[in-house]
């Protein structure tokens, strides 16, 4: 039976084994190095990619903020408009239309009356002065001022009457109240 005889010196064998181990270590290190650079590459790619994504998002945010700012200005204008409309509505609701008073006085003045002045004594109290052809005419005028259901006036009072000597004409001053709901905020 043939026997294997190892003629290589044991030191050489040892050295060879050591070399092989070193080589394996080198290969292992090389793999580690490659892996390290691969990871580096992956991270570099990810960072670059996320940076691009952030940049895109920043642009998107800036565009949306610009649009929002624009809309906020519109919103502010809308708020101003709403406030202004409410304010105007309030003013209109409380506006006193004295032209209606004048029209009413015009329509209710009878031929025997000559009006010399009309003035506002209070917001709803109108003072009418003038000359009446007779006291009867004055009486008719005062009665006519408040007559009828759709009348603008009520509570007419004769304040002053001065009959001229010899009868005939009489100067007068009459006050009359106006219905607020007819002249305020309604036209």
């Amino acid at each position, binding site marked *: 039976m043939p026997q294997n005889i190892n003629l290589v010196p044991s030191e050489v064998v040892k*050295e060879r084994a050591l070399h092989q181990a*070193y080589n394996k*270590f*080198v290969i292992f*290190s*090389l793999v580690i*190095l490659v*892996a*390290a*650079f691969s990871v*580096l590459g992956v*991270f*570099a790619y*990810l*960072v670059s990619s*996320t940076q691009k*994504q*952030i940049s895109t*998002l920043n642009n998107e*945010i800036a565009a949306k*903020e610009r*649009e*929002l700012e624009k*809309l906020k200005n*519109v*919103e*502010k*204008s*809308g*708020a*101003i*408009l709403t*406030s*202004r*409309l*409410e*304010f*105007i*509505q*309030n*003013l*209109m609701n*409380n*506006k*006193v239309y*004295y032209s209606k008073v*004048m029209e009413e006085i*015009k329509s209710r003045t009878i031929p025997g009356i*000559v*009006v*010399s*002045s*009309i*003035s506002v*004594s*209070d*917001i709803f109290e109108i*003072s009418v002065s003038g000359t009446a*052809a007779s006291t009867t005419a004055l009486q008719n005028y005062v009665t006519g001022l408040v007559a009828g259901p759709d009348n603008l006036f009520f509570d007419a009072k004769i304040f002053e009457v001065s009959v001229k000597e010899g009868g005939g*004409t009489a100067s007068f001053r009459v006050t009359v109240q106006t219905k607020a709901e007819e002249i305020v905020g309604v036209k």
Partner: protein
Amino acid sequence: METGLSSEVKINTTIIKSYKSLILGLLFLVVSSAVSYFISYPLYNKYLANKSEIELKVEQISVLDKKLAQLEKVKQLADTIEKHNLLTEQAIASKDDIPVVMTMIQLIAENSGVAIESFSYSGMSRTVSTTKASSTSTSAPTPPGVGDSDNDAFKMNISVKGKFDDVLKFIQNLEDYRRLIDVSSFSYSAEQRVTEDSRLTDGISLRVLLTSFFKDFSTTAASTIDIDKHLPLIQKLESMNYEAVDLSDVTVGKDNPFSPFEDTDAESETGVEEEGAGAETDTTDTGQEPGVNTLDTNDSSSTDVEANPGDVNEVLQEVLQQEGVQQP
């Protein structure tokens, strides 16, 4: 000796050769570690930070999208809001544009066929009182209910002369004018009481206290926009008369400010000379000397600014000076 030395060197070379692979491997490991620690790790951290930042930004975009969606309705109304804002600005100014209002009144008077005898600026009033005015005919009753808000107003006493129907038309035109000018009080009187044949003369004189409001809305806080609710008001405002007044082209500059009036074209520039032709000698009933034009912003007292018909430019300039408004 020589043989011994060469053998030592040989041994050292062999040692170096034998450790070459080991050194190379170690070098690779060191480089790998350095790359990982000094480059890859910071990159990893940077990646994580970017990832969080992206999440935040996506969230931010989501919030912005929600806000934009909420304001989408406003976006659709943008044109309408702008248009109506212009309309309401004509109805209520943001500042005390007294000269503009005076010019508007002058135009209304012209269109109504009455002649303005006097303008009397009666001062400013902050926060109009809601209480009823006193019961004297010369007092200024204020429209009830408008004083709750912090609004400003200025008042003017104006005397006009004309036929009854024209004076009535003047009042109606003031009431129907888009720029809100309230008639706070009025007093009519016949120019001549009764003629010999007991007939009322055609001409009457009207003295009227006007209140014009203004309010600055620029500090208005955001609120719900509800234009539909006010559509009837908007339609009413649109139907009201309005004539834009532009005082920007008024001729300014005079060599001698104390020199008397010249026959300039100033009257024709504002187009008010025609109405005044028939009442060129009219003066106010205050008994004040013409030309004594002092203005008092105290609400309780007023000083008339004399204004012959057609002299509106002079009156305006004086009011501008008194109000400290710079002319363009």
